[in-house]
């Protein structure tokens, strides 16, 4: 596994929000395309809850498509023939970055629940070190959807003007009660699995598969819209003509959820879900700045494009617009577009032509402006 994963050893001490200091930890990352001479084509991507650094091409670990192949790759909206794309695995994650399944040097065992509770700010601060490592002073663009968008807003607030432009997609400046509730549901599902054993399952080399699968099913429901789900599955039965009068997956939607749930346990660590969802729940940008969001976004030179999806009930258009309002109040340069679609929160990950066209149009026009600025 390890030779397929690029890792940066972050040697600079990082003071976490929980007050612990860490140093010499691994940050796994991947890059696509190449950085040009003028260094005006670098795009940083932040991944969502269950994503990783393998944005495009084939994920060398899972052998499946990268999580954003619809948008990133040769000839795609974010064209890797033209742009240098960077993505790091979040700390707390499980694709090579410092996370609860990594070995704690002090105990020679996997961290499990001894891993510190991290925040979106900690995640972003650790990733910023990657830009130094790659020799990038200023990015052309940074983009991310869902938790990736939250990281991006944090990145812009913590490191102002590190990027010429930014595309926060389907996200918000703080996690809503509904989203905290859904995350809690996912965590409780994991913790209710006896195999979880207070996070110590890794010692026995097993995963709390049942709990983790249920956690994933919760997620999948929230990523779709009511209409999208009805159109995709309706009341269709799964490979049968009639009810079986049992608790098997009679309906296609049940079969879909079970499949998604149990495919997920093959590639993800249950403790990582606990830690990352916690980081999302703790996210509240206005809480970090005394003057609230206006203070968070003041003196921004970055050109923002916020994108929301009309059928997204996890990060609604209204929440995305609240971010626009905050950026406007701070005098930032912000654009906003709502994509009309039935595909729900998942819209940014699937083939949604209007979204991809908007993304491409924005980034290409920003590239022209950035090149002119650098001249």
């Amino acid at each position, binding site marked *: 596994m390890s030779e397929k994963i690029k890792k940066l050893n972050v040697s600079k001490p990082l003071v976490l929000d929980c007050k612990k200091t860490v140093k010499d930890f691994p940050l796994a990352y991947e890059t696509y395309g190449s950085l040009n001479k003028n260094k005006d084509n670098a795009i940083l991507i932040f991944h969502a809850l269950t994503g990783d650094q393998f944005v495009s091409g084939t994920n060398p670990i899972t052998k499946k498509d990268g999580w954003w192949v619809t948008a990133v790759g040769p000839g795609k909206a974010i064209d890797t023939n033209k742009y240098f794309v960077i993505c790091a695995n979040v700390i707390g994650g499980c694709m090579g970055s410092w996370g609860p399944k990594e070995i704690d040097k002090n105990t020679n065992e996997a961290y499990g629940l001894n891993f510190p509770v991290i925040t979106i700010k900690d995640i972003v601060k650790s990733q910023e070190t990657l830009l130094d490592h790659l020799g990038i002073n200023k990015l052309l663009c940074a983009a991310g959807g869902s938790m990736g968008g939250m990281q991006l807003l944090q990145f812009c607030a913590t490191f102002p003007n590190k990027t010429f432009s930014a595309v926060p997609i389907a996200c918000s400046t703080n996690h809503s009660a509904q989203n905290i509730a859904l995350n809690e549901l996912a965590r409780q599902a994991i913790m209710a699995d006896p195999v979880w054993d207070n996070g110590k399952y890794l010692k026995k080399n097993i995963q709390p598969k049942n709990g983790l699968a249920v956690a994933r099913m919760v997620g999948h429901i929230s990523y779709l819209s009511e209409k999208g789900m009805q159109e995709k599955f309706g009341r269709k039965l799964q490979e049968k003509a009639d009810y079986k009068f049992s608790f098997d997956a009679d309906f296609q939607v049940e079969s879909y959820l079970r499949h998604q749930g149990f495919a997920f346990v093959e590639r993800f660590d249950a403790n990582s879900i606990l830690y990352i969802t916690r980081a999302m729940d703790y996210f509240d940008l206005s809480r970090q700045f005394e003057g609230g969001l206006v203070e968070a976004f003041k003196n921004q030179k970055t050109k923002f494009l916020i994108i929301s999806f009309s059928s997204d009930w996890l990060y609604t258009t209204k929440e995305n617009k609240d971010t626009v309002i905050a950026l406007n109040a701070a005098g930032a340069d*912000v654009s906003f*577009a709502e994509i009309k679609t039935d595909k729900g929160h998942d819209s940014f990950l699937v083939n949604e032509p209007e979204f991809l066209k908007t993304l491409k149009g924005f980034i290409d*026009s920003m590239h022209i402006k950035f090149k002119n600025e650098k001249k």
Partner: protein
Amino acid sequence: MKKEFRVIADLLPRNIRVLDVGCGDGSLMSHLIKEKNIEVRGLEIVEENVKKCIYKGLSVIEGNAETELHQFPTKSFDFVILSQTLQAFYNPEKVLKDLLRIGKSVIISIPNFGYWKVRTSLLIFGKMPVTKTLPNSWYNTPNLHMCTIKDFFDFCIEKKININKVVGVNEETTSEIKKSNLEIKNLFSKVGIFLLK
């Protein structure tokens, strides 16, 4: 570019901050950036137009001016522009109030219902006017609150809104409108452009 946009551009100083409410596909915005080095933002309700602006690298917010002007802080722009849409709002008075709050100055253009062709349509033919500036029929027009240049003039006086300059635009010429020539200009201008403070 539309003659009206040229008049609006001429009213604006260089190097200022402008909000273009109902910016359409961004042609006025592009012009202001290029010719006057103006920092310009747009608000637009039509999705297709929003995307056109984004592709051009213009800053635009998809939204409805009727309900979403509150997001812009007080006096956050030097000028706010509203081109030929005031009459389409449910509550134009409220929208205008918001524009005057956001901008240090406001430029508003209105299609003039007092234009002679409009008047003759109703007077001679007894039908609701359909012209180049008012292309819709009575049943599908977005224009809920049509007014004449004179109406808007009186409205500003009544509401104690400071009129700095008024320009009348018709096919061939543009000319300044003053109280002294209001009656005649109200008859021969297709569009009235008001600079308010």
